[in-house]
């Protein structure tokens, strides 16, 4: 009975091929976009996660402002974090952790006639590579004494190198940063570009030089690396109490790598829900399309319904026939949507990070089938209730 009803449903869908395709388009688009958007957000999540994990191990971040507080983290007016705080931390955590302060701004680099605009300039201390993993393809990093003496040296990213120097080696050349000459001493390995942000269009210069040239007395980040993983929580607590001596608790946040990761995954799951929910609206619109076409189908096949009733079909048989047809339509749309969603995610995955999640597939397929049932019920009941005499007489 079931297989009979299924094949009859498929026959009727195939008999009106164009109409069926147009009907399921809404479901196809809905399922495709749910899978695609969720795979993009999941990809974003795994990209950020790998970036943060790739920074180093046992890391603790001190950033200005309070996460979840009245002042936003990283806000310029709120920033009271200064080099003295980093120095205090290093002195008092000497046997447990390494501490490194970072300032940041954007500037234009010049070499001969070539310009590279919007380069991220990081002012860092000499111990920076001990804490944050920096891979060099050539040259070397500046050491503590070079950094503290305020020498104008720079380690450049591959995008900067190719923009300004082309194929020639940049090592030993002098480059103009915001009007002052810096000597290139190292070249970092490519970290790639994702979501339109070029990770490689950046340079690292000594903190002292950066502060002097750009007048940056506020720090953007203080990185703390605990000597071993068991001590991360303890170092976090101590760092907080050290900073509290000078600053109020609204002035800074101390977060471990894990806390940062969980914050990010919280943000991305909210993003997934929001985007997936918007895409799911088109599933409902698709369901209305199915209901519409099922009502047309019931009217068109009034005579067939009358005949089936005369031949012994019970009202439930007729209801099931049309319900299964609606579910087959929406299920078919779901399957096409899954195929499209996965293919598009894979294609986009060539340029951006995408992660196809099984739950988005199950969720969107389940939802599309549910839509088929919900919107198929009304036309099916209408068909089941048709009076056989009037139905047989219908022309």
């Amino acid at each position, binding site marked *: 009975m079931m297989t009979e009803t299924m094949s009859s449903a498929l026959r009727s869908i195939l008999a009106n091929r164009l109409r069926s395709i147009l009907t399921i388009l809404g479901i196809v688009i809905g399922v495709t976009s749910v899978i695609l958007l969720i795979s993009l957000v999941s990809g974003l999540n795994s990209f950020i996660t790998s970036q943060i994990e790739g920074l180093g191990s046992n890391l603790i971040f001190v950033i200005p402002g309070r996460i979840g507080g009245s002042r936003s983290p990283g806000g310029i007016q709120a920033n009271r974090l200064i080099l003295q705080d980093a120095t205090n931390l290093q002195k008092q955590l000497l046997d447990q952790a390494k501490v490194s302060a970072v300032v940041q701004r954007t500037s234009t680099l010049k070499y001969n006639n070539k310009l590279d605009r919007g380069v991220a300039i990081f002012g860092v201390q000499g111990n920076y590579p001990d804490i944050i993993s920096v891979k060099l393809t050539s040259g070397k990093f500046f050491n503590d004494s070079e950094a503290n003496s305020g020498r104008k040296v720079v380690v450049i990213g591959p995008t900067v190198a190719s923009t300004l120097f082309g194929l020639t080696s940049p090592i030993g050349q002098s480059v103009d940063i915001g009007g002052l000459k810096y000597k290139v001493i190292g070249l970092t390995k490519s970290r790639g570009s994702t979501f339109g942000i070029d990770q490689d269009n950046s340079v690292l210069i000594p903190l002292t030089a950066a502060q002097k040239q750009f007048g940056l007395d506020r720090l953007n980040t203080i990185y703390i690396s605990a000597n071993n993983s068991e001590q991360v929580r303890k170092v976090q607590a101590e760092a907080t109490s050290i900073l509290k001596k000078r600053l109020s608790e609204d002035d800074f946040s101390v977060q471990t790598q894990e806390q940062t990761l969980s914050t990010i995954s919280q943000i991305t799951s909210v993003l997934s829900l929001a985007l997936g929910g918007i895409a799911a609206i088109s599933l409902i619109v698709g369901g209305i399309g199915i209901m519409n076409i099922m009502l047309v189908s019931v009217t068109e096949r009034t005579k067939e319904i009358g005949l089936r009733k005369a*031949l012994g079909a019970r009202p439930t048989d007729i209801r099931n026939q049309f319900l299964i047809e609606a579910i087959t339509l929406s299920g078919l749309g779901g399957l096409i949507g899954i195929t499209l969603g996965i293919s598009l995610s894979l294609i986009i995955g060539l340029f951006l990070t995408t992660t196809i999640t099984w739950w988005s597939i199950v969720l969107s397929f389940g939802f599309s089938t549910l839509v088929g049932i919900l919107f198929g019920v009304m036309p099916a009941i209408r068909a089941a209730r048709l009076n056989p005499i009037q139905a047989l007489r219908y022309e």
Partner: protein
Amino acid sequence: MKPVIILKNITKIYQSGELSFRALKNINLTINEGDFTAITGASGSGKSTLMNIIGLLDIPTSGTFLLDNVETSKLNDNQLAKLRNQKIGFIFQSFNLLPRTSAIDNVALPLIYAKIEKYERLEKAKISLDLVGLSDKLKSHPNQLSGGQQQRVAIARALVTNPQILLADEPTGNLDSKSGFEIMQIFKRLNKEGKTIIMITHEPEIAKHAKKIITIKDGDIL
């Protein structure tokens, strides 16, 4: 002679707002096993209403209808559907075959509702099509068959559940006289083999083929 249909004081009133119309007035009719009865009458005489009541598609306003000794007035939709499936084979004026569906699948359709397995369904459908001389058209679709052939497929469909009664509503109305004559020959043969046939027609030429003719006028049997 065993009666298969007994109608006692059957009245059918159609109510439409304030207006009511008595389509059938106190009909008393008995049809025995093996009868071949033609019901004739002008359009609007009530013959279609009578047909619908005998076919369990409509219920009378009052009176009792015994189909094979089963009192039908107390039955619900599902029980009526089951009786229709088992006891009555319908043949319509416009054949009512499913389009895009082969002859054998059309014939097997009632067996789906009798919950018979697919293999058995196709076997029975084949036998049935053989009875009407169409064993070479099993896979043909309705649009590949002539009107006469389509009506023979419809007769095979009516026969497939081996019902007691064949109920034909103007079976030759859409056919030329030659095809109509052929259909009547099939009916006569089936009747000779023991099938009870009730046929509605307004054509005296066709009614002549039946053993017994009942004429209805204004809801009464003349």
